[in-house]
């Protein structure tokens, strides 16, 4: 999932970063109002009413899985739909609609065997033809999908998206109602993870064809996940009911899930405290201290697959051909201080760019092992080498998109740069869409705030960003050895060797430093003690089907 504006993962919380503060099992509810112990005498008795109320950030753009991209809509869609695969509690791939699969020797052909009891919410069986239709629809330019590009590993996907080939040429074939064959262009180790993404979810063909653009509404929408759509009042709530036809319906305990769109995190927390929500979407980082003091058992902080960094525009002065200056800026940031005193949610100081993804050794420059004082001394030296001094200080602009957290971090970093190097910074905040445009044009930017959340649990989701041809490479960095290593990784079948290429690429990146990693994100929310089955997930995939309400 990308760090979409409406989805801005807030930062923050205190040390003990990775430690997960599990929410379950504590004695009484907020304010000690609960009369019975949570979960009854045994601690595991279920409540009579199995209703979960989730805060969900912004209003979803659409419930059509092929037409949306943000986190709020994905949360809903993971409850409504199920792809061929699904993501397990530890981020591992688990069977979804496909109960098993085989991969050919060369890693290019995947054969999926679908469950015979997979059903749509109207009782129709979910067939291989449904997936064939849906995957084609997802990449068909006529669908106007903005995330179909994530399916690019599938053979001909890029050509179909570009309108050069018809959707029928996509490498997906239904061999029989229960067998689906997907052919890839390159061996892609993370491909099964892509299939758990909403862009690969199936849609009900008859419904889509009957209602056209307006099919994803209550009374019309037919879905194949654990829940079905019951009600949708825009900007107020979306109500889901258990889908009795779901193949694993016997293990789904919640009867209803209510999603509330609440953009304002302070409002969301207030509603949580007033017992109107069972779990929040995010937390206002300014109130973390209060939450730590007052709701310590309900606070859940866990690693998240994302990196917060400052991009440097290397196509312009002062950063053009000036790695020494870029390194000086990197070194002058006191990440420990920033994450402990400013953001404070337990973010991990990032000395490298790629977060802790599966099958990858995180890279850091040697400086990471130095003390901050040593780093700062080195920074001063590099700064002087780059030709700046107290008398002739560097003047810099930091661009960030309008948001409390980004503002705070920009102020802190400009203050650090000023204290260590004497740099004069000017802060420029722009509203999200303007900022994106400014950043992309590379005409005026010097330092710009950025973040990236992995779409799938693989280093490539991060590495591809800085490829010289990437549309998201807003640093304008072009480095042939880096591109070369990425190309080799894409063609490599051996996972260990592939990881080695990607790690080498990251080392190139950190040597050249077209971006300054700052910290790795965490997920943070409060969850009521009576919500059972909650397990943090590296991509924050919290499926409602795993949750239940304890007696309280």
């Amino acid at each position, binding site marked *: 999932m990308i760090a979409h504006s409406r989805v801005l993962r807030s930062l923050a919380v205190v040390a003990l970063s990775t430690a997960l503060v599990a929410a379950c099992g504590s004695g009484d509810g907020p304010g000690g109002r609960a009369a019975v112990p949570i979960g009854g005498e045994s601690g595991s008795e279920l409540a009579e009413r199995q209703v979960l109320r989730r805060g969900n950030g912004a209003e979803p753009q659409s419930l059509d899985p092929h037409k949306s991209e943000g986190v709020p809509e994905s949360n809903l869609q993971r409850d409504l739909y199920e792809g061929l695969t699904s993501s397990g509690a530890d981020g591992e791939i688990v069977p979804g609609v496909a109960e098993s699969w085989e991969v050919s020797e060369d890693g290019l052909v995947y054969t999926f065997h679908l469950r015979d009891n997979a059903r749509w919410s109207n009782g129709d069986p979910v067939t291989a033809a449904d997936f064939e239709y849906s995957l084609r629809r997802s990449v068909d330019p006529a669908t106007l999908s903005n995330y179909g590009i994530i399916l690019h590993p599938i053979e001909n996907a890029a050509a179909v998206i570009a309108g050069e080939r018809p959707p029928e040429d996509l490498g997906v074939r239904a061999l029989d109602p229960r067998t689906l064959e997907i052919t890839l262009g390159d061996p892609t180790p993370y491909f099964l993870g892509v299939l758990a993404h909403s862009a690969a979810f199936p849609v009900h063909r008859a419904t889509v064809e009957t209602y056209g653009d307006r099919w994803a509404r209550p009374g019309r929408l037919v879905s194949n996940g654990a829940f079905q759509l019951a009600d949708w009042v825009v900007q107020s709530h979306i109500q889901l009911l258990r889908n009795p036809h779901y193949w694993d319906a016997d293990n789904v305990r919640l009867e209803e899930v209510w999603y509330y769109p609440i953009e304002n995190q302070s409002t969301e927390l207030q509603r949580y405290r007033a017992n109107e929500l069972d779990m929040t979407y995010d937390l206002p980082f*300014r*109130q973390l201290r209060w939450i730590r003091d007052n709701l310590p058992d309900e606070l859940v902080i866990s690693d998240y697959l994302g990196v917060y960094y400052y991009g440097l525009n290397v196509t312009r002065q002062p950063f053009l051909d000036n790695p020494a200056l870029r390194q000086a800026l990197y070194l002058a940031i006191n990440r420990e201080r920033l994450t402990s*005193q400013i953001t404070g949610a337990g973010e991990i100081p990032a000395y490298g760019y790629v977060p802790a993804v599966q099958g990858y050794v995180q890279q850091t420059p040697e400086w990471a092992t130095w003390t901050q004082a040593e780093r700062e001394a080195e920074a001063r030296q590099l700064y002087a080498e780059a030709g700046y001094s107290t008398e002739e200080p560097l003047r810099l602009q930091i661009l960030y998109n*309008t948001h409390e957290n980004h*503002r705070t971090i920009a102020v*802190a970093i400009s*203050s650090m740069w000023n204290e260590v190097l004497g740099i004069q910074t000017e*802060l420029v905040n722009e*509203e999200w869409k303007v900022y994106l445009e400014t950043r992309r044009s590379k005409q005026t930017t010097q330092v710009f705030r950025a973040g990236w959340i992995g779409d799938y649990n693989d280093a490539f989701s991060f590495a591809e960003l800085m490829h010289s041809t990437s549309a998201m490479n807003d640093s304008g960095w072009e480095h042939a050895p880096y591109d070369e290593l990425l190309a080799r990784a894409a063609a490599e079948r051996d996972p260990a060797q592939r990881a080695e290429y990607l790690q080498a690429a990251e080392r190139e990146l950190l040597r050249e430093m077209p971006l300054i990693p700052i910290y790795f994100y965490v997920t943070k929310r409060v969850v009521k003690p009576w919500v059972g089955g909650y397990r943090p997930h590296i991509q924050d995939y919290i499926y409602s089907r795993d949750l239940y309400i304890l007696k309280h």
Partner: protein
Amino acid sequence: MMRPGMGVPSAEGTFATEVKGRSLWVDAWNVLRKNRAAMLSACLIAFMAVLVVIGPWLSPYTYAQTDWDNISIGPDWASRHIFGTDALGRDLFVRTLHGGRISLMIGIVATLVSLIIGISYGATAGYLGGRVDHVMMRIVDILYAMPFMFFVILLMVFFGRNIILIFVAIGAINWLDMARIVRGQTLSLKRKEFVEAAEAQGVSTFNIIRRHIVPNLLGVVAVYVTLTIPQVILVESFLSFLGLGVQEPMTSWGALVNEGAQEMETAPWMLVFPAVFLATTLFCFNFVGDGLRDALDPKDR
């Protein structure tokens, strides 16, 4: 949030009577002096103005400086953070006063902008009368129907937050009321003997407006100004709430109060100090405005 410039609708009616030159001001002063609330408020405003100008020099800190050892601490004498610090360790005393400078400046400048446009437009329409007046007032009517705050929000969202833009945008909305009030006054004034006398002597229209009409409008203007400044300050704080206020590390009362409101339970000092300054100022301006109106209203005696 109110639509700016809407707080003085009765002024038009109140000033419909004749303005009597200098004696009016003497009378008004005598009335105003007896209005304790207004006098106290005026003194407070003066004090506030002096404080925001010289206050920041009284602290060892600057408004943009981070004190890494004292992040988010409450009021504390030992470290000389008498109002405490914010989440970035910046001294709240200096920031509150600095924010006051910005807020008061926005209030005064935006009011002046609307005043200049409003007076020239209204006086011209009222004095020329007839067809010109009709067309000019029709334009004002059209502009009145615009959901202006929406346009301001759009402007700020699309074209970034430039302090000049804030002045101009707010001022440009506010002049409508002023234009209407001034036009009404001018219409009644121009039938007065001294204006007719000047006309008979061949004084040019521009000079009549400048020398006779405008000075006689000062009463309305005084009331209008004191009641508009607090409105503009509130509009600025509203824009700050939407994240469209002044650019960091600069600040304003609106921006500080908005920040403080998010931490009212964790760091109440971040809300209390700027909010007290903001609320006191707004209160005082409104009291002075009301007092002035009472004092300048001949019917009130």
